[in-house]
């Protein structure tokens, strides 16, 4: 059973208009790589030129921010859900 990756509204045009994509992976990093292999147009929206996640892209494994886990190396299993959430902020 694959891992589900939830795609937020603004990224769906680059993921075949799907709200979720299933991937097979053992870590969050592998899952994201599998995601951008399936949907190459997503790559530049998720990753900077140096290959790191863009600063405004948050990735959660279930309810945990992967920055506070093991980042890309965070283990993922089949019952997990990965959420991609661009940040929401602003001000005067």
């Amino acid at each position, binding site marked *: 059973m694959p891992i589900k990756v939830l795609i937020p509204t603004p990224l769906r045009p680059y993921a075949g208009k799907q709200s979720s994509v299933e991937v097979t992976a053992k870590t969050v990093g592998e899952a994201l790589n599998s995601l951008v292999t399936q949907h190459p147009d997503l790559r530049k929206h998720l990753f900077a030129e140096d290959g790191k996640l863009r600063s405004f892209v948050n990735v959660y494994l279930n309810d945990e921010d992967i920055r506070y886990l093991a980042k890309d190396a965070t283990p993922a299993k089949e019952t997990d859900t990965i959420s991609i959430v661009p940040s929401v902020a*602003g001000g005067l």
Partner: protein
Amino acid sequence: MALRIQKILLDQLRSHGEQTYPHECCGVLVGEFDEAANKTVQTVVACGNTRTDSPQNRYHISPAELIRIQREAALVGLDIVGFYHSHPDWPAKWSSTDLDEAHWTGCSYVITSVEKGKAVLTNSFLLLGEEQTKHFEDEVIEVGETIQEQQNR
């Protein structure tokens, strides 16, 4: 393209700005997109402003809160269609910070000016383009008394 919202929901987000004055309020608009990319708001979800270091001129919604809202919306077949925040004693226009920090292309960014504690103007701006070309365009807010009335427009 337009943002359709019931008056009771519009009043809800405007009054949130009055409650948090002189600090900025913020929240999420949950609803539906139609084929013409119009949005109909079904629920307004008030969020906490995590920018406690500068809440009078900055807002930030916790990603964990966004994930929860996104998940609960999906359970009933809805989506995040936009966001709202207030500008205390400042016009209801997007700022350069608002544009820099906006990343939800295709979504509405609703801003209410709150002057001396009273909500005055509410405007909506649609985020378009990609990260390098992103920009806001003015968006019409269609206010209805009921959801049925909105959908019949």
